[in-house]
């Protein structure tokens, strides 16, 4: 018996290895032509057989029969939960029980076929149920791409190309009949228009319900009857069996189902079957089941002596494997497009992203849970050693470096104030900036000595590297859409009409007509720089302020890191953040998000300083408010000042309130502070609810600024990032503020949360291009990420150098794929040639070549010509010397109202240059409506002649001669 059992075990191992080997071989094109389903079934059979013959052993492993019974019970619950999931999920996934869509499972398209004129497409199918009422057919629309060329004059062919971008849709006929030779007539036939209007990729063809359809064969046919002019072609997928990607839908009325409830059960079972037949679902379900079984096993065994120790290696390698797979899967959006074998691996893995994330999170959680004491002790020791060395260096500085000590001038304000010599004190206050400057060599020298020369040097190198990355080729790309607004504001401020006396300036409609007042502090900053540097039309001058703000953000980010992390970790976090592509992007454009980021970091840093200074007062139940305020007499006013400056820069700075209040709730013992925090938090939530649902008071008084577009930030957050991002903002960012990491929070817990955020944020990072409103979150996520990786590394080795090396490799692997591949292809360490060729960040808005467009416009204009478009830029109009009277913008956005007024009749009498950006989407609103007639007349004008078409048809310029 024992021999037979051993043989069964051996065969199971053998088949498991064979399946894995063949699967990998098959993936890399080494196919033996094996049917894997067959192999999987045999493997499953052997696995079950092994479990059966080893029941006694499993019982022994678990210890006692009570534990074994618990294991069986929990396994039964696990299975029960899976069954519940299988019953309910498919109903939500595939629609209500009233309908049944008979989709082709595991559909793999082998070709795409274009719908063309005079060629009908036919598909037959067997109806599996009564009440056939709809056919869903997957249609793919693709843009017709025309090569770039400058067109001079006009001929028929070019005219056709130009007309491609008008909006006449393709027309197709759909007809359906029973698939019998004797039946010639179609029972339904109708014409449909193909455009971009449908919401799903399945185009739905509805027809009268066929009540007796079950068991009958049907054939439907699609035929194009009119070719459209949408600039698109429409394709249908076909698999290797020649079937289109379609489904027949059977629809039941509630009345019918009431009379025959069994139909509901049948529909549910059909949906469940469909869900189960999909291979991805099978893998995910098996994986979820096994993972839960593993957790049950660990839970039952956790108290056993040495169990965790034995488990540790498996957890370590499991976690490492998970992280590696995530890193590979995250390459999906990057630079692997041309390497087919890599692309296959990445697409395969990224299909199981969620499974990978759960696997990694589980292993990470268990690993840290089992090692928390050891790691806490290590980290405590490291931090304490570092702090002791710093204290020692701080003390010895004056003796060791008498030259620097000479610069240690005192302010002496407090002392003379206490002595009652107020005039002298005021004089000292006035002179204090000079004292501050004179003390600078002492402060810097002491700081460098305390930090260590090497660390200070590396910090300097990182800042230099970042500065060169940010400033290199700063003006090589033209101003992009939103940067024109900054230019607009700077131009107005520089004209001399702007006054700071009225904080409401720019807030009321009549006085703000010519001025973009959003992000006012930033505009003032840029204006100062352009004033010093001389020219507000220079792209470099407009952008350099963001570069400076970026460097200051890095400095304060480092200071913030040093409050929590060890030096090496802080430097690594700083380096990765300094080359993080969103940071680079926002620090290179003339927009106020760089200021928002800086202010958020500074205020966070000041809050932590406040907490550090006040710890002695805050830890007691009673509070001495006077002493608390006195010990923070500089920090509090500066923070409040910056907070209000920040609110005027962007409303989202308000979010800083949440982590501060939540932190206060969690870590500050004093009851007064706790209740105050609860009160303020509740008031804020109330205010937000009132603002959102009842009365919109945010855009008034100080908060007002013309062109504010994101006052409804709740909705904005939800739309942009959905629920997980809300978690990040309200919850995780609060966790950044813990004072001493090891003691205040369980590693297992923070790792659990941060791995999730890291997966969510970095793996999907490239999809977050609209993340500018939440730029302030990224540095904090970077800290969490680096710290998490460090914790992981701590579990693998006690060797510090090795830890740093692994940390760097993992950091590069997990966070910096995008920078290395795209931003800094050459000269990684000291410059970053961002140019047209690199197409930084894939952002389309920078790739319009406005200079080319306007030079062609200028060539084709004379004194009487009118320039018309929906997105014309006054910056270029001025640059090319086009009079404002010659410009007519056929849209009015809330942010810019400039336009000249012409009636349609007047326009008809003028020579027109019409500029069209077909790929820029315009949302119709009330402002636009009055100009739509003008637009329709010009855009659909049959006499328009194309004079320029940019690459991929992104910009078109037409000439329309007066009648």
């Amino acid at each position: 018996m024992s021999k037979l059992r051993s043989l069964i075990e051996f065969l199971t191992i053998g088949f498991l290895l064979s399946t894995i080997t063949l699967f990998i071989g098959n993936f890399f094109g080494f196919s033996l032509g094996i049917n894997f389903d067959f192999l999987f079934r045999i493997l499953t059979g052997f696995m079950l057989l092994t479990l059966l013959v080893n029941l006694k052993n499993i019982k022994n492993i678990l210890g006692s029969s009570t534990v074994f019974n618990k294991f069986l019970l929990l396994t039964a619950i696990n299975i029960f939960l899976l069954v519940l999931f299988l019953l309910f999920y498919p109903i939500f996934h595939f629609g209500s029980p009233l309908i049944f869509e008979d989709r082709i499972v595991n559909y793999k398209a082998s070709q795409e076929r274009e719908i063309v004129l005079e060629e009908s497409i036919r598909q037959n199918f067997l109806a599996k149920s009564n009440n056939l009422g709809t056919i869903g057919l997957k249609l793919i629309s693709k843009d017709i791409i025309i090569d770039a060329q400058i067109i001079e004059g006009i001929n028929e062919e070019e005219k056709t190309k130009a007309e491609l971008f008008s909006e006449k849709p393709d027309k197709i006929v759909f007809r359906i009949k029973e698939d019998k030779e004797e039946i010639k007539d179609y029972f339904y036939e109708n014409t449909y228009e193909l455009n971009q209007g449908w919401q799903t990729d399945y185009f739905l063809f509805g027809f009268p319900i066929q009540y007796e359809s079950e068991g009958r064969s049907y054939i439907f046919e699609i035929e194009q009857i009119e070719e459209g002019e949408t600039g698109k072609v429409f394709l249908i997928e076909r698999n290797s069996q020649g079937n289109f990607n379609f489904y027949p839908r059977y629809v039941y009325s509630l009345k019918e189902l009431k009379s025959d409830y069994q139909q509901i059960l049948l529909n549910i079972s059909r949906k469940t079957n469909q869900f189960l037949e999909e291979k991805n679902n099978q893998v995910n379900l098996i994986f979820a089941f096994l993972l839960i079984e593993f957790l049950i096993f660990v839970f039952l065994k956790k108290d056993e002596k040495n169990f965790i120790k034995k488990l540790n290696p498996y957890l370590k390698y499991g976690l490492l494997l998970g992280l590696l797979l995530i890193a590979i899967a995250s390459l999906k959006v990057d630079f692997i497009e041309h390497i087919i074998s890599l692309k296959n691996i990445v697409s395969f893995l990224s299909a199981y992203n969620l499974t990978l994330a759960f696997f990694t999170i589980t292993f990470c959680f268990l690993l840290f849970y089992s090692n928390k004491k050891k790691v806490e002790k290590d980290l405590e020791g490291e931090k304490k050693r570092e702090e002791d060395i710093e204290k020692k260096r701080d003390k010895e500085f004056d003796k060791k470096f008498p030259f620097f000590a000479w610069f240690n001038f005192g302010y002496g304000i407090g002392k003379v104030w206490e002595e009652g010599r107020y005039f002298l004190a005021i004089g000292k206050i006035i002179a204090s900036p000079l004292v501050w400057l004179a003390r600078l060599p002492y402060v810097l020298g002491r700081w460098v000595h305390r930090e260590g020369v090497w660390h200070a040097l590396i910090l300097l190198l990182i800042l230099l590297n970042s500065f060169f990355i940010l400033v290199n080729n700063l003006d090589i790309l033209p101003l992009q859409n939103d940067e024109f607004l900054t230019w607009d504001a700077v131009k107005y401020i520089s004209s001399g009409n702007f006054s700071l006396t009225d904080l409401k300036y720019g807030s009321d409609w009549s006085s703000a007509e010519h001025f973009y007042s959003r992000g006012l502090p930033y505009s003032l900053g840029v204006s100062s720089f352009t004033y010093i540097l001389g020219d507000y039309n220079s792209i470099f001058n407009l952008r350099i302020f963001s570069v400076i703000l970026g460097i200051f953000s890095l400095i304060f980010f480092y200071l913030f890191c040093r409050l929590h992390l060890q030096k090496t970790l802080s430097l690594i976090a700083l380096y990765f953040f300094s080359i993080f592509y969103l940071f680079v992007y926002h620090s290179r454009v003339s927009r106020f998000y760089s200021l928002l980021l800086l202010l958020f970091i500074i205020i966070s840093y000041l809050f932590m300083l406040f907490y550090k200074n006040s710890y002695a007062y805050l830890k007691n139940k009673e509070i001495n408010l006077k002493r608390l305020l006195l010990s923070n007499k500089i920090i509090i006013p500066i923070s409040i000042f910056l907070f209000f400056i920040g609110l005027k820069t962007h409303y989202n700075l308000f979010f800083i309130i949440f982590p501060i209040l939540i932190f206060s709730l969690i870590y500050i013992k004093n009851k007064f502070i706790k209740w105050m925090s609860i009160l303020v938090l509740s008031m804020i939530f109330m205010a937000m609810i009132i603002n959102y649902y009842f009365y919109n008071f945010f855009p008034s008084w100080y908060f007002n600024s013309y062109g504010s577009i994101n006052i409804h930030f709740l909705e904005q957050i939800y739309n942009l990032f959905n629920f997980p991002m809300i978690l990040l903002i309200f919850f995780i960012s609060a966790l950044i503020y813990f004072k001493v990491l090891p003691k205040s929070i369980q590693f297992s817990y923070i790792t659990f949360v941060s791995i999730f955020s890291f997966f969510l944020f970095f793996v999907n990072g490239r999809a977050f291009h609209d993340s500018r409103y939440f730029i302030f979150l990224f540095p904090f996520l970077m800290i969490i990420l680096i710290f998490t990786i460090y914790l992981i590394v701590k579990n693998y080795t006690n060797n510090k150098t090795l830890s740093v090396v692994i940390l760097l490799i993992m950091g590069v692997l997990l966070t910096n794929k995008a920078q290395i591949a795209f931003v800094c292809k050459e000269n990684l360490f000291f410059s970053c040639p961002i140019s047209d060729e690199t197409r930084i960040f894939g952002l389309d808005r920078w790739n319009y070549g406005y200079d080319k467009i306007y030079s062609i416009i200028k060539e084709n204009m004379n004194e009487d010509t009118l320039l018309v478009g929906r997105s014309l830029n006054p910056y270029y109009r001025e640059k090319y010397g086009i009079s404002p009277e010659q410009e007519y913008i056929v849209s009015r956005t809330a942010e810019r109202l400039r336009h000249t007024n012409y009636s349609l009749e007047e326009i008809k009498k003028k020579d027109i240059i019409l500029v069209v950006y077909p790929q820029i989407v315009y949302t119709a609103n009330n402002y636009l409506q009055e100009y739509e007639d003008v637009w329709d007349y010009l855009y659909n004008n049959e006499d328009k002649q194309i004079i320029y078409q940019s690459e991929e048809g992104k910009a078109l310029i037409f000439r329309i001669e007066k009648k």
Partner: protein
Amino acid sequence: MNLPFWEKIKTAVISILEAVIFYILVVIPAEYFLTERFLVFPFLPPDVKTFIFIAILTIIFVINFFSIPPKRFSWLFFIIVFILTGLSAFGYKKYLNYYGELQTYPKIYSVSHEWGIQASLINIEGKNFGPTWQPGRVFVNEIEFRVIFWSPYLVVAEQPIPSGFFKGKLYVQDFDNKRSNGWEFEIKDPGSLE
């Protein structure tokens, strides 16, 4: 035969490699001769292949399980198995390219009649005829038959009125003008039939 865990893994790995070598050196050539040379059937179904592979694997697993490990698994043996696996994999990869190239040509495996008269329908079974939406042509020597039905594995053709009666070769020519193997076919005089 209670093998230690790592010994089981080692034995299993060697068994898999042996099975792969055996499969590549015996089953694949057999498949080639049966499907491409002697035209016994168009292809070996994946289920049959899987069954054969699993049978080979199981037999080798059982043999290795009951054999005495030290005697068989010497270092020399390991090296030989790995080299053989590498060589067979390399050869198999080359063969797959060649086999893929072969699958671009139509091939006839059977014809419903060895002869025909005008208007008679002939079912031609084979492979690689091309998809339904890309029908090709059917010839007996220079006479072109009318294609009634076209699919990758079956073509139904109708014989036209011939210019003469003779024994010739029947070909299928696909959409890309690639010709299949010839099949003996006689165009008969309807008058000669009783």
